[in-house]
């Protein structure tokens, strides 16, 4: 029974990774850049919720909305100021390093504003959860909400991308920027929209992450960011169901190896599995193989 408990915890952590990975994978698929600042947007989102609730005393739902709006704005502004000018630069490394710069910047802004000491985050989800089999299996409310939210987001995104004009525009830009421009698609607007969606997802992920692990420091975003990136690659970067599967697998593997093998080696095991998967299937689980033309 305890195994089932751990499995559910893994699913919950995996759902958070999946939500972050969705943002990563969309941005990568469309703008072809590794957004190293994505993890820090999660952190900013958590701080916004913290400020709204503990300092301004707003209702949790309003606070979450504030965080989503704040992160959305942040995502769009960084894209406009720091990434867009570098589009078409002679090396794709340029935008990568700029993203690292943005990551440092966000961390230090948070450090100067809130200090280095961890802030206690009061969970937004008051629901105690359900207990099955006479209390042998406890599922926390946070866990249920997290898993539910990630499923909702996945379905919503799939519908958005496949059935709306903007979503189709995203697919077109991801496939071929030049051809998309010729079809009358505003590439800049589409990329900005992608950043907006990715960053608001990061805000949601931040709230869920802090509900499960209730402390905030300026560096909380870094490791989940990297793990989610690994999840996105694992599932096949650019693929939305891939990011979801990658996130869930990663979360479960992490929790189970932390419990049954070694708490210190959990990260090594997660990364080890990534390497094995990439060696067997170099484009990730659901990634498409792109033919190389000469």
């Amino acid at each position: 029974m305890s195994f089932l408990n751990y499995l559910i915890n893994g699913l919950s952590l995996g759902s958070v990774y999946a939500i972050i990975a969705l943002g990563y994978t969309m941005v990568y698929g469309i703008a072809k850049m590794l957004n190293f600042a994505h993890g820090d947007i999660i952190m900013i989102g958590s701080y916004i919720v913290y400020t709204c609730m503990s300092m301004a005393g707003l209702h949790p739902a309003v606070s979450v909305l504030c965080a989503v709006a704040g992160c959305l704005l942040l995502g769009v502004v960084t894209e406009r100021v720091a990434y867009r000018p570098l589009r078409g630069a002679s090396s794709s490394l340029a935008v990568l390093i700029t993203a690292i710069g943005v990551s440092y910047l966000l961390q230090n802004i948070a450090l100067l504003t809130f200090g280095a000491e961890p802030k206690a985050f009061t969970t937004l989800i008051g629901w105690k959860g359900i207990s099955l089999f006479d209390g042998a299996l406890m599922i926390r409310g946070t866990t249920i909400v997290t898993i539910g939210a990630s499923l909702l987001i996945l379905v919503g995104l799939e519908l958005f991308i496949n059935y709306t004009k903007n979503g189709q525009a995203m697919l077109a830009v991801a496939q071929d920027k030049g051809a998309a421009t010729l079809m009358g698609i505003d590439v800049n607007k589409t990329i900005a929209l992608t950043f907006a969606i990715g960053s608001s997802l990061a805000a949601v992920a931040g709230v869920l992450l802090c509900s499960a692990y209730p402390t905030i420091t300026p560096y909380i975003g870094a490791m989940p960011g990297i793990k989610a990136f690994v999840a996105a690659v694992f599932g096949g970067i650019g693929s939305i169901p891939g990011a979801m599967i990658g996130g869930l697998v990663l979360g479960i593997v992490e929790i189970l190896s932390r419990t049954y093998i070694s708490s210190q080696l959990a990260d090594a095991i997660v990364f080890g599995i990534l390497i094995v998967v990439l060696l067997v299937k170099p484009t990730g689980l659901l990634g498409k193989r792109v033919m190389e033309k000469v």
Partner: protein
Amino acid sequence: MKKKLPEKYGFLFVIFLFWLVLTLLSRAGMLTSHFSSLLVPMTYYAIAAVALNLCVGILGELSIGHAGFMCIGAFSSAIFSLLTRQILPGGVRFFLAFVVGILFAALFGFLIGIPVLRLKGDYLAIVTLAFGEIIKNILQAVYLGVDADGVHIALNMTDFRLSPDGITLIKGAQGVSGTPRDSSFTVAVIVLLLSLIIVQNLIDSRDGRAIMSIRDNRIAAEATGIHVTHYKMLAFTISAAIAGAAGVLFSHNVTTMTNISNYFGYNASIMLLVYVVLGGIGNIRGSVVAAMILYLLPEMMRGLNRYRMLIYAIVLILMMLFNWAPALVALRKKLWQRIRDRRPAVGKEA
């Protein structure tokens, strides 16, 4: 094309002068102790940046795990020095520590290269990142020691049964301590000069041209009969070996390696990448200069205390935009052209 000797070795001479000036200043007691303590780290980061630039700029493969190779070099050489501390005299021991550290880093570079170099682009980057994290993670978790019964290895303190007269080599998260402080600015500069000579000669050689042709167009290189895997492995292994040498200097400078995720985590690898990109991808000398300046910059701004990393971040973003944004690059070229039109043509450096 053969380069003229002054052109090829001019930069080495500049570094030599730099060393001479700083050493004289230090002898004269004109450097603060804080600044003196920065000289060795500055040099080994420059060496690591040269190593990474060989991988990123010359071979054309993005690696975000190079701090992992530094980590291997640092730990293997530190363990060697701890074991031979009583047996060997200082100079010989330090030399052999270099041999051990470089060999181990090269070995890992080779082993990791076999699977990694099959991947392309960002996938390769993420796998190097994963390897760097795994190396760091394992070294952080492991307990290693030697006593009369042989080698002891364990994952936690209770399983680690070392007799009291044994030597503890790695103590879990507390890392390695008691490494002799053998690194000096002079040794560091010698290693830097050697690695620059090695990399420069590699670039100018037949092998180097083969490596760069893979970077520029893999398919065309393959079609002309260049063994792609062979040359990729060659460059990657040399790059890992040089990073390992930087690691040897590191471990014999700090003597106690505890908080290794700060030194060898992906943050450290990314810092090296920042040096390489700002110094100019493929520009080996640029890496040295950028690493030294960017290492000293935040350290020199300690007076600004809380704001120094904020300023560093803003400077980094602005420099990237200024150096790489197509609009600004075009503007800069136009300005240069205007200046050049006024003057007679000046020979451009290759």
